[in-house]
């Protein structure tokens, strides 16, 4: 169900297949080009016609697999009279490579994580959101307008959000963990029964927060301290695991794991989730409109349609991530809500997490950190 998270954060393990796919993806696809309505304004936002005939426009979007309902094209056709073509991307990097390649992708709307939306906007590739064309923005939580990569939703609209914490077995631990240090330096009953993630930013997160640094640190000195802490934690680990920690926890092979809120099966007996007291991250997946889009009215109408409580609620109930839509969250089945920490998280709790932002060239520091930690014996 939340497989999309796997494909999103963690590119598939099959290198050969992935490589072939990536190569073919780089070949690029062009959507059926509708007759060009003149070049889009390059510097400022385009003049948009609120009464445009949407049936004359067509939309091409790119999204993670499983992140929108399969029937979306039919639903959009019915509601907006617009043809919708959905292409899929495996992870942020893949869609970023496509969007920043300089060639016209024919895409109108793309789903990317917040820090990537920020980078796309800095590169001048995004159309500002015209709020008057998206009345459903009113459904969002007030906190959803305070996201640090894009305060006020100027160029992006949040779709899902969540955080990272410790998922644990309350029957196999003597005391419930409250701090990242409980994970990094586990009690005797949890030694060699702890997993941490190996994907760069999340590998660093527990140590960063335990040391009181920012998740977006670029300081070599701080990263060196983080490395030290992670290496000290390594002998107590069962394994580094981004994908199967849930099963390990259920089987009791692990008793405490670093987990995304949407991945912790807290509805199961004896399994609980906690956001450590030192704080954590806040990730947001967003929708953006490309400046190169020739169907900007339809693109806005599409985002407005997604923000409809019923449509947006689909994401909460099926991907099991929180959605920043107040009206949608109110519609979620209470029983399901009770079983998933990701659906119980309040916006103000989430906002205590620190947004991961794009570090540009400094991101290689985290790549290196992950390699160093994994390579050390």
């Amino acid at each position, binding site marked *: 169900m939340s497989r999309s998270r796997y494909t999103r954060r*963690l*590119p*598939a*393990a099959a*290198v050969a297949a*992935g*490589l072939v796919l*990536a190569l073919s993806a780089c070949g690029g696809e062009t959507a059926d080009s509708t007759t060009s309505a003149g070049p889009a304004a390059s510097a400022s936002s385009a003049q948009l016609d609120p009464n445009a005939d949407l049936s004359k426009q067509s939309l091409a979007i790119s999204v993670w697999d499983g992140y929108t309902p399969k029937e979306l094209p039919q639903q959009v056709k019915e509601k907006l009279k617009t043809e919708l073509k959905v292409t899929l991307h495996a992870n942020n*990097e893949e869609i*970023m*490579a496509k969007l*920043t*390649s300089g060639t016209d992708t024919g895409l109108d709307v793309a789903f990317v994580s917040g820090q990537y939306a920020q*980078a796309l906007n800095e590169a001048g590739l995004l159309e500002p959101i015209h709020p008057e064309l998206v009345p459903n923005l009113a459904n969002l939580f007030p906190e959803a307008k305070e996201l640090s990569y894009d305060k006020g939703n100027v160029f992006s609209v949040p779709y899902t959000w969540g955080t990272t914490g410790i998922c644990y077995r309350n029957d196999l631990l003597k005391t419930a963990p409250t701090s990242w240090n409980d994970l990094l330096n586990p009690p005797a009953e949890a030694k*060699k*029964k702890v997993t941490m993630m*190996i*994907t*760069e930013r999340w590998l660093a997160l527990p140590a960063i927060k335990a040391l009181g640094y920012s998740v977006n640190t670029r300081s070599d000195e701080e990263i060196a301290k983080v490395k030290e802490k992670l290496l000290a934690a*390594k002998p107590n*680990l*069962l*394994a*580094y*695991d981004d994908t199967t920690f849930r099963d390990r926890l259920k*089987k*009791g*092979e692990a008793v405490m794991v670093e987990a995304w809120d949407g991945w912790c099966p807290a509805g199961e007996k004896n399994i609980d989730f906690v956001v450590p007291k030192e704080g954590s991250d806040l990730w947001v997946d967003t929708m953006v409109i490309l400046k190169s889009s020739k169907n900007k009215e339809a693109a806005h109408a599409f985002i407005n349609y997604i923000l409809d409580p019923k449509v947006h609620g689909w994401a909460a109930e099926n991907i099991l991530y929180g959605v920043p839509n107040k009206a949608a969250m109110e519609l979620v089945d209470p029983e399901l809500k009770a079983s998933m920490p990701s659906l119980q998280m309040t916006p103000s709790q989430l906002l205590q997490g620190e947004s991961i932002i794009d570090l*540009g*060239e400094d991101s*290689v520091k985290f*790549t*290196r950190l*992950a*390699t*160093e930690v*994994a*390579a050390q*014996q």
Partner: protein
Amino acid sequence: MTGSTVSGATAVPRSRRSRALGRRSRAIGRLVFLGPGLAYLIVLLLVPLALILSYTVFRRDRFGGVVYEATGENFTRLLDPLYLDVIVSSLKLATIATVIALLVGYPTAYLIAQLPRKWKTIALVAIVLPFWTNFLVRVYAWIVLLSGPGLVNSALGDLGLGPFEFLYNQGTIVTGLVYSYLPLMVLPLYAAIEKLDPQLREASANLGARPARTFVSVTLPLTLPGVVTGCLFVFVPSFGNFVIPELLGGGRSIMVGNLIRDQFLKARDWPFGSTLTLALLAVLIVLLLLQAWSARRA
């Protein structure tokens, strides 16, 4: 090849024209037979290889694309102790796995070669049998067997022993490698030992050599090409492996295969990933040359 000998045998008196025709049909015949193989090699080996080679001199851009701007920095980065250590530790793990596979595989192949014909076939099928199951499933099976609450520990627990921590260290990586590639060691060894004329060993014994001496001076040198081929078959996939370190090593140690996979899929640094691939290829080419050399000597 078959085509050419047939036409050569039938066309006894040859005019210049028929010779030209023969040449052309021979060329067509070659094309038909070689074509699919050649196309396969060109499309799926040479083209990707050329791509990889060309990427090694370029640079990654901020979002993981390739900037076509010549640079040598990927090669200097290769000399960074961090990456050298990973390459050296991969060499070490692959070598240990190969030696163990040889020590287990040689007696196995030797015994199979001595079996009566019917049992030989059965034994060989048994050796190949694991290949009929998906590789990943077989690796996961080890986790089911050896994990903390796994089958082995619960069986030992019934006897009042354990639980033991078998999994997620370099030892289990080597175990996984040996297990996965042992058949590739046994088969070429079997082929070499099977070919060995038993009379040679008898002659050695008749001339007064003890069995150990016969083995060292006769059997081993004559089966050396099989030994080298088997070692290569085990070493090559072990050296570049990334699934076993991740699953049976718990991601706690990485091999050069993991490094390459991460460059392409996580760091999106294709140029450096290509450079690492080239380094791996260089090691393997040296090994293949050694094998060719030893085969020629034999």
